[in-house]
C-alpha cells in the first residue's frame, strides 16, 4: 500500500566532494511500512528548493528495519537532487512510498549478477541483502567513471563478492562493467541499473547469451502514482507507465534495439 509519510534525516553524508549524498531517513512517527521491496522507489518532496516544483523519484537504496531507516543514495544531477544532498540532520521530508514494481526473485541455482553503473548502484544494495537473506549468493559488478564515483563498496561486500570497473582505471578493471571478467563467466540472472547506454550494453550481452535480465528505467515522472501517464515506455504489451508497471522491466518486454 502507498503511503505519504513525514521522515526525518537521521544522518546525511556526502561522497566525492558533494557529487553524491547518502540520506538515512526515519519516520517522524511510527515505523517504516513493512512492504518495501528492492527495486521500488519513493517520491520525495524536495524541501526549500526554488525551482524543484514536482517531487523527485529516488530508488530505495536500503531498508534497515531494525534501525527503522530508509536509505536514499542521490547524485547531484540538478537543483532538486543538489538540495536533497544538502539536507542536514533533523530536517523533515515528505516521502511517498513504496512505489512501482521492483526486481523479481531469480530462479534458484545459477549465478546471479547485480550490475550497477554510477548512482545506478543504489537499488542493488537492498536487493543484494534480500537475495542473501533468501539463500542466494549474489555477486555485484559495479562500474563508475573513477574510484570516487564507486559508492558504498563496503556495504555491498556484506552481501556478496564485489567486482569493480572504473573508466579511468583507478580501481579494479579499467573500462566498463561489461568488460569485467565476472561478466564473461556463466550467468543465469542479471539485475541492472545505471545510465541507459550501459543498461543497453548489458542487455545486449544478456540477450546474446540467453541470460534472464531485468533493468530499472528512469523515465521522467510527474506523479509517480500511475495517474498522469507522463512516464510511459513502449513494451510488448503497449505503452505503459514506468512508475507502476516498472521501473524494473525484463529486457524481453522492452522495445530496445539491441
Amino acid at each position, binding site marked *: 500500500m502507498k503511503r505519504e509519510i513525514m521522515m526525518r534525516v537521521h544522518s546525511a553524508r556526502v561522497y566525492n566532494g558533494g557529487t553524491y549524498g547518502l540520506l538515512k531517513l526515519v519516520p517522524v512517527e511510527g515505523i517504516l511500512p513493512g512492504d518495501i521491496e528492492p527495486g521500488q522507489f519513493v517520491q520525495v*518532496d524536495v524541501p526549500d528548493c526554488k525551482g524543484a516544483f*514536482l517531487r523527485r523519484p529516488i530508488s530505495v537504496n536500503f531498508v534497515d528495519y531494525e534501525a527503522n531507516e530508509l536509505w536514499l543514495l542521490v547524485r547531484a544531477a540538478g537543483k532538486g537532487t543538489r538540495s536533497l544532498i544538502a539536507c542536514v540532520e533533523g530536517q523533515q521530508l515528505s516521502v511517498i512510498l513504496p512505489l512501482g514494481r521492483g526486481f523479481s526473485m531469480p530462479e534458484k541455482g545459477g549465478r546471479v549478477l547485480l550490475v550497477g553503473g554510477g548512482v545506478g548502484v543504489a537499488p542493488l544494495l537492498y536487493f543484494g541483502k534480500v537475495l542473501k537473506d533468501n539463500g542466494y549468493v549474489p555477486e555485484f559488478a559495479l562500474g563508475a567513471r573513477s574510484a570516487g564515483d564507486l559508492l558504498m563498496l563496503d556495504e555491498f561486500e556484506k552481501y556478496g563478492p564485489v567486482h569493480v570497473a572504473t573508466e579511468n582505471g583507478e580501481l579494479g578493471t579499467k573500462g566498463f562493467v561489461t568488460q569485467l571478467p565476472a561478466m564473461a563467466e556463466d550467468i543465469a540472472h542479471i539485475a541492472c541499473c545505471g545510465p541507459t547506454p550501459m543498461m543497453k550494453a548489458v542487455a545486449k550481452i544478456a540477450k546474446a547469451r540467453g541470460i534472464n535480465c531485468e533493468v530499472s528505467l528512469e523515465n521522467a515522472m510527474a*506523479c509517480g502514482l500511475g495517474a498522469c*501517464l507522463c512516464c*510511459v515506455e*513502449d513494451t510488448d504489451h503497449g505503452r505503459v507507465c514506468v512508475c507502476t508497471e516498472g521501473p524494473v522491466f525484463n529486457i524481453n518486454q522492452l522495445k530496445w534495439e539491441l
Partner: protein
Amino acid sequence: MGTLSVNIGGLELQNPVLTASGTFGYGEEYEDLMNVNSLGGIIVKGTTLLPREGNPGPRMAETPAGMLNAVGLQNKGVDYFIDHIYPRIAEKFSTEIIVNVAGSTVADYEKVCEKLAPLPRIRAIEVNISCPNVKQGGMAFGTTTAGAAEVTRAVRKAWPKTVIMKLSPNVTSIVDIAKAVEAEGADCVSLINTLMGMAIDVERRRPYLSTITGGLSGPAVKPVAVRMVWQVAKAVGIPVIGLGGIASTRDALEFIMAGATAIQIGTANFIDPSISEKVAKGLAEYCAANGLKSITEIRGII
C-alpha cells in the same frame, strides 16, 4: 443542503472540490493516500471512442512553478472504460464520477456520449474541446465559436444529463466561446485547460517534449485562469467551474470569489496527493470561521 453543497448545471455536489481530468487517473491511484469520497467528485481521464496510445515519450518537462505535458489523450477507449473501469470505480466510490469526453470528429463525441448515457453513476460529462496535445479535433473545436457550438449541439442531443464544456485558454476571446456553448445548451463550463507552451533543453539543443509543444499547468497559469473565470462568470448565466494552478484553500477561494461555482485541482495532486481533500476541509473551515451559511455567499463577489 450543506454549507459547501453547490449545483453545477443540474448536478448537486456535496462540496465544490473536483479533481481535474488527466491528473487523478480514475481515483484509484490515490485511494491509499486520501479519502476520495470526501470530494465533490472526480473527473476521469479523457475518454475517446477508440483506444489511443497517446504521444511517444518524453511527455513531461518541469517549468517554473508548473509543468508541460504532452500525454495526448492516452486511454483504452470508451468500451474498455464501460466494461472494466466503471464497474470497479462505481462500486468503490460514492462521490460523483464525471467522464471527460474527447474526440477527433463530432460523430466521435456523439458516439461516446451515447455509450456512456446508460451508466447510472455517470451523471455529468465534461467535454474536452481544448486538448492542445492531439493533432485532430481536441483544441481545434475549442478555438472557434463555430467549432465549439457544433460539438455542444451534438453532445446536447446525445447526452440527457449534465453537460460541462471544458474551454481552452488558447483563444483570443474565451468569453465568446463560453457564450457560444451556452447558446447551444451547455449546462456548465469549466476552464481552463492547459496553455500551449514549449521548453528547450539548451545542452542537448532540442525540445524536452517529443511533440515540441505541450500544455502548461500548475501555479504558473493561475492568474491567467482566475482572470478568465472572472470574465466568463460575468458574461454567462450558467455555472462556471474554475481550474488552473489551484494548490491551496486560498487558491480555491480566489476562483470562487472570481465567480466559480466549483473548482478542480490538477497538477497539485502530483505534489500533495491529499491536497483535494485538504482543500474541501479548508473551505468548510473558512465558512465556519467567517460565519457563512453557504459557500455561495462569496461566489462572484469581485
